[in-house]
């Protein structure tokens, strides 16, 4: 009887061992060899970044990750989180760099001393998406006009005109709040003004789904919207696109080793410089063109960003020392 137990136990253990070996063969496993002058191979370093949902959802990171890992000979861990928690990870020193797109929150992050060496590396635009029949008639308006119309129509007829907000303090959410305030509204008031205003509290994807189902208006960045519509049937379409306020700039910030316990500042700097290097800027600019017919991101180093809100050139050309 005890022998039978042993047999089954050994099978279980063997299975576990085999499986753990399988894990070792994960596609992201790193090749080893160092350059010839280092006879002893340095231990594999794990470089962690926190990135926001918008960048992640487009799959850009899947593309860039193996490239950087090869370039810097590190193991890159990408943690996908909303702007709020991404910056929190930075403050706690749990990640080495953060890549987000929320200017206000980033400014505070840097002012508090947690972030250094901020460099911008890409931009695109937000847009307002909504039901094809456009009940609030926003097509062709500016951003602030559109928001005003949505508010008025929504207050009058909340069952027909609805707006879905990210509601999660993300970069997109911050942009939305900015537009409301530029349109002359107090955001706290808008939040509670009626049932036309829906707070999703989720990432861009589920928020778009919700808007699609509810036939509501929603603010989203172009890249996520394109990527998402390809994978799912969205019934909502782009309505308002051209407006300087829609500018959405992405940047990377290294976490300050003096105020936190991070240890990979060198790799973080390398990473930031790599992002603004001409080669990678090209890659970023070409990403998605084939699949979606239009690029999802615009590189900054080609100087194409000239509108209000674009970062100063030294913020995307000068490498970090």
């Amino acid at each position, binding site marked *: 009887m005890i022998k*039978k*137990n042993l047999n*089954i136990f050994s099978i*279980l253990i063997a299975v*576990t061992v085999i*499986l*753990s070996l*399988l*894990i070792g*063969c*994960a*596609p*992201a*496993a790193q090749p080893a060899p160092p350059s010839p002058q280092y006879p002893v191979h340095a231990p594999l370093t794990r470089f*962690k970044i926190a990135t926001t*949902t918008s960048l*992640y*959802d487009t799959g850009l990171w*899947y593309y860039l*990750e193996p490239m950087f890992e090869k370039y810097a000979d590190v*193991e890159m*861990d*990408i*943690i*996908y989180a909303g702007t709020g928690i991404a910056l929190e990870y930075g*403050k*706690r*020193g*749990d990640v080495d760099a953060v890549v987000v797109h929320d200017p206000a929150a980033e400014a505070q992050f840097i002012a508090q001393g947690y972030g250094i060496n901020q460099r911008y590396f890409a931009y695109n635009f937000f847009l307002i998406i909504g039901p094809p029949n456009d009940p609030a008639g926003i097509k062709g308006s500016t951003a602030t006009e559109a928001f005003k119309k949505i508010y008025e129509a929504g207050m009058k007829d909340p069952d027909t005109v609805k707006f879905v907000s990210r509601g999660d303090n993300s970069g997109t959410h911050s942009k939305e709040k900015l537009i409301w305030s530029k349109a002359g509204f107090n955001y706290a008031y808008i939040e509670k003004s009626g049932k036309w205003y829906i707070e999703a509290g*989720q*990432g861009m*994807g*589920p928020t*778009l*789904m919700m808007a699609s189902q509810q036939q509501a208006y929603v603010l989203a960045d172009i890249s996520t919207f394109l*990527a*998402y519509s390809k*994978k*799912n049937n969205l019934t909502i379409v782009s309505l308002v696109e051209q407006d300087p306020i829609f500018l959405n700039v992405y940047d990377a910030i290294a976490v300050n080793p003096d105020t*936190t*316990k*991070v240890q990979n500042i060198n790799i973080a700097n390398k990473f930031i410089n790599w992002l603004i290097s001409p080669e990678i800027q090209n890659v970023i600019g070409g990403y998605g063109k084939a699949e979606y017919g239009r690029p999802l991101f615009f590189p900054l180093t080609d100087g194409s960003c000239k509108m209000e809100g674009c970062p100063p050139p030294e913020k995307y050309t000068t490498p970090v020392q």
Partner: protein
Amino acid sequence: MNAIWQGFLKAIELILTLNPEVLEITARTLVISISSTIIAGLMCLPLGSLIHFHNFHGKRTLINLIQTFYSVPTVAVGLIVFLLFSRSGPLGFLELLFTPQVMVIGQVILISPVILGLVIAALSGVDKAAYETAIAIGASQFQATTIVIREARYAIYSAIILGFGRAISEVGLALMVGGNIRGYTRVMTTAISLDTSTGDIVLAVALGIILISLALIINFSLSRLQQRWR
């Protein structure tokens, strides 16, 4: 509903083509959950015996407390473990955050109350005279304890199976302390969560189907073994 059918087809496709990423995630899921179950089992069996076989002030209260933690939300445990192992937390120097190891630690914390409480319940279900009989036959305290554990083995297996179920099915903790890092800490549950929020519904459903099937197969096999071991 269409998504479920498509997901089902996708699941078959993923399995038949032995999709490497799915294999990798599945393997990792199993290793992490099985490891945490084994560790929690090895810890809680002796601990449960200790509690059961000794009478002390507040024993009843302790058992009640353990049972209270059966349904502690996984995100709550996840949050606490995250705060503990964050670089700015007390155990940050171990550099364990966002690694599979901390996920195992977290799962052990999560499922220990369940396994511990059920081990104690299992031992309580054995006639008290069994221990005495063993002593009378000449067993040492350790040998008598072992016999009682053996008598309760059916119920103890249930405890382990349940612990494993809770480990493999939880999302909150894995997400918070593991970070869902592709190729490193992504497990089936967190992958499903991610795919859902990026809109890859079909893939999410496929993974869900694979996860459920996996859990069913494992549970079924363990139950068969349990019957054989009666």
